[in-house]
């Protein structure tokens, strides 16, 4: 039975290897420590590796959620389509999760996608985080694209290796401001967790509106 109660949804998109999965693995423990229960849907073009890794790390080993709260979804080779033009399969899976686990405070939907065209359908996600990393060069924000320009929060990852790949963070910051105006951006290092707390605070403030976790309210 489908519940009428819609659980807030955050879409996390970004190019392959930019750190989407690792960002989620950093965010969820922080949300969990604040009492929020999270479900994850991972769109993966060719494998279940990301979903299995998150299930193992976050559910099996850390016990932050039950294993059925991490679902891997194949997208028929069309990751953009699956979260934007025709998000039917994702919406179905999200709603199944909502109906079975209405105790959840948040659902995270992960999807790969390049910086040019990736956006999440508003019917699927209430808030859109786009993650890039410094290895594409400091030109990345300046080159714009739907993901970089339109996302609610831009996350720039792997700042620890910027110096080794010749990426100037001050240029990336300057261009992010020019391209995005007042919309926020955060520099992070998902390996160490640097900056991840800021990302989590954005979610708690802008998506959950600082409401108490459902478990606490009960």
């Amino acid at each position, binding site marked *: *039975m*489908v519940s009428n109660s819609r659980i807030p949804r955050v879409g996390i998109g970004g190019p392959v290897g930019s750190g989407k999965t690792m960002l989620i693995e950093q965010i969820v423990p922080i949300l969990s420590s604040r009492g929020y229960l999270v479900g994850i849907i991972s769109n993966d*073009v*060719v*494998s*279940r*590796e990301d979903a299995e890794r998150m299930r193992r790390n976050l559910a099996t080993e850390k016990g932050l959620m039950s294993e059925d709260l991490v679902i891997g*979804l*194949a*997208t*028929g*080779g*069309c990751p953009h*389509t*699956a979260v934007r*033009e*025709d*998000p*039917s*399969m994702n*919406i*179905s*899976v999200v709603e199944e999760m909502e109906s079975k686990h209405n105790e959840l405070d948040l659902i995270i939907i992960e999807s790969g996608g390049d910086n040019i065209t990736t956006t999440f359908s508003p019917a699927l996600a209430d808030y859109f985080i786009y993650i890039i990393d410094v290895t594409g060069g400091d030109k990345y924000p300046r080159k714009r694209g739907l993901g970089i320009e339109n996302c609610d929060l831009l996350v720039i990852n792997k700042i620890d290796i910027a110096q080794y790949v010749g990426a100037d963070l001050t240029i990336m910051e300057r261009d992010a401001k020019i391209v995005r105006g007042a919309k926020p951006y955060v520099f992070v290092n998902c390996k160490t967790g640097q900056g991840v707390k800021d990302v989590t605070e954005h979610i708690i403030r802008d998506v959950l509106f600082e409401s108490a976790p459902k478990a606490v309210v009960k």
Partner: protein
Amino acid sequence: MSIDKLSIEQISALQLSDSFFPTGMYTTSNGLEALFYKKQRKLYSPNELLEMIKVYLECQIGPADCTALGNSYDCAKRKDVGALVEIDRMIFSMKLIRDIREASARSGSQLIRCLVSFITDNDVLNNFNDMIKTGGATGVYPVAFAIACNALEISKNTAGLAMLYSFTVSMVGAALRLGMLQHYDGQRIIHELKPDISEIVEKCIERPLSSMWQFAPGIDIIQVKHERMNSKMFIT
């Protein structure tokens, strides 16, 4: 039928069978992907693929889905939601592979849900949508498609043609994305399957529900193998 009414019926059929219509069918290859890997990524000849799609149509989609569609269409026309729920249960149970069953139900549910967003005064559509929401029906695709076509006043035969055409396009689309064939070959396959689609619809759409069948064990095995693949691009 006036030319205006006929035109709108045809446009509605085009709308529902267009791959742009949001049902998520592009995420399924119906097991084709497993065959691709079984052959170690070697290209199939376009004719092999054509023959394979023909087997799907003749042994699964025609005698099972198309017959379910025909019967569902009649039920929708006489506003018999109870009978629609019964057909929904039957055709859902006949789909032996879990991923195929679930993908069909998800696509069908989303089809109905999309339609109720712009057709608000069709009782059958609304009631069946409520049945899906409350868990009384699965929303499996052929039943949902029949209800949608009835709501849009698309004729039963056109509904059958549109559903089999959509299936064929989704198979060819999956093959293209897997790199199994080239785009002109894909269009040739669709073109050459037109007489088969027409013949299968004619043969299956008026059959009684009791004669519904599907028997393609080779395809079932391929789909089971696909379901268990670790690395894959398609849901099914």
